[in-house]
């Protein structure tokens, strides 16, 4: 079931990437993930799709240098461009190492309600997952979980703390 979904999302996301300008007004609820991913993907296609001079990947040591925490704006689940190249490198590593797997942990800041924030964290994790998949990773290598606002990276209230807590953490379960 889950695999089917991920597959759907992946194909939909990919289709969006390659057919730039494709409409994102899909109303199918089952494909909701895909349509959201389409939005993210299409918005960023031009900036990273042509980037061919990334880290060569393949070695476990190379990914240690990569960014593993990706930040988001309030009530948003769009991956910022700053994270694109590193996410692409992670994706290449996963593509080259089929036995490797990652866990994406979505988080939110303390504002708003907890269950809504859990959903928001999941959305963020899913957005990152789609970026990995369209860049070559297999969805079977990726596990997502949302903690909402339950596990803040930084305690305290204020814009600085909140910005650090609205994040997706990429963790290698195996390499």
């Amino acid at each position, binding site marked *: 079931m889950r695999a089917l979904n991920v597959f759907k999302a992946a194909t939909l996301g990919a289709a969006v990437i390659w057919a730039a300008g494709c409409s994102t007004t*899909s109303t199918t609820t089952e494909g*909701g993930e895909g349509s959201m991913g389409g939005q993210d993907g299409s918005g960023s296609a031009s900036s990273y799709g042509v980037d061919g001079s990334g880290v060569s990947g393949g070695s476990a040591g190379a990914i240690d240098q990569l960014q593993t925490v990706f930040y988001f704006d309030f009530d948003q689940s769009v991956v910022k461009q700053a994270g694109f190249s590193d996410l692409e490198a992670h994706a290449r590593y996963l593509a080259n190492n089929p036995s490797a797997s990652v866990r994406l942990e979505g988080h939110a800041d303390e504002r*708003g309600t907890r269950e809504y924030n859990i959903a928001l964290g*999941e*959305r963020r994790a899913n957005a990152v997952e789609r970026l990995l998949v369209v860049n070559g990773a297999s969805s079977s290598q990726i596990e997502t979980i*949302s903690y909402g606002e339950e596990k803040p990276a930084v*305690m305290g*209230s204020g814009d600085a703390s909140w910005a650090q807590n609205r994040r997706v953490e990429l963790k290698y379960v195996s390499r």
Partner: protein
Amino acid sequence: MRQILISLCLLMMATASRAELVVEVTQGVSEPSPVAVVPFGWSGSGALSEDVAKIVEQDLGRSGFFSTLPRESMLSFPTREGDVYYRDWRVSGADYLLTGRIEPTADGQVKIDVGLYDVLKEQRIPLANDIVNSGSGQLRDAAHYISDQVFEALTGLKGAFSTRIVYIQAERNGDQNNYKLQLADWDGARPRTVMESNEPIMSPSWSRDGRKLAYVSFESGRPAIYVQYLTTGKRERIQSFPGLNGAPAWSPDGNQLALVLSKDGNPEIYVLNLASRQLQRVTHHYAIDTEPTWAPDGKSILFTSDRGGQPQIYRLDLESRNLERLTWEGNYNARGRLTDDGRFLAMVHRPTGGNFTIAVQDLKSGRLDILTEAGLEESPSIAPNGSIIIYATKQNGRGVLSAVSLDGQVRFRMPSRSGDVREPAWSPYLH
């Protein structure tokens, strides 16, 4: 012509003079009624473990319906009807007076004899039970029971002072997080731990019979929904699908559980029949649908959805599948909870450009009132008699519990010793 007029006038005057004078009063003072709770007498030896009168006084004072007379302002300390001088209390400004005396009984228990008086009428108000028997270790229960009786005698509403709350307490010890599901008296006293984990615990929800709790625990590394019996401690994992398993809510008849699953791609509301384990999806939208709560009649479910671009509260009729958006003010309305009469909707509300507050919307008139203003409020939960909303907020960066009367008049903070306290859930009546 003139004569006709004159006689007409006279006729009118005559009829007017026969009618009774009617005075219409449309304005008054929106102040809680002052009650004097006199310290109870104790005829036993040694000191009692609890100041019963103080507990009753706090209960009544926090209800939003009453203000209490400080003991320093009392001119006398009667413990029985014969010692009550109404004039004294009238002068002190009390509308009502409660006296009591506690006596030890032969079997090592105590007997509490209470009297409630209408100071203005100079009359005793009968209580369902003027005499309360209690174990000496259960004085708090006895006190809450007395509060319930006084409250009901004076307001006509059932008191909710003998109810309980559960809440989540989180602590960080170095690198280790600790999460506790706590159960306490409605005033936060006598907390005890129902469940403890190093992974998050969320969204506790009472069954309508007050015997079970449903909650979300991440103890397996993934969120799953559990049901736990309070008396036996027996627990059961109900749902653990891939993705979200959250926001359980008991149906009024106790046979169903509304919950949120994202197994189909994104968060949707489902209804689980607890006996047959049959799962029914009730929302179909690619937006976030979460935080279900049942209408008191069990015929509809209210939930939060950002299908309109921002989180707002919707009502779904389970039979007709009619969907109705309930909230329109502000850009963030979420986690609705209804009063038992279904009239008032408490929620987390953020006015445009403002902070997160607790607000109440009168579903009859549509009027919305903001009850708090600290800015990071969440998780409103309503007392079963609809008089008080308990909610979570932040104080000095720490999560604490507060309560506010439904009319916003009275607000108070629950005691908490340590950690981050949040997600209070008010029990139904337990007796």
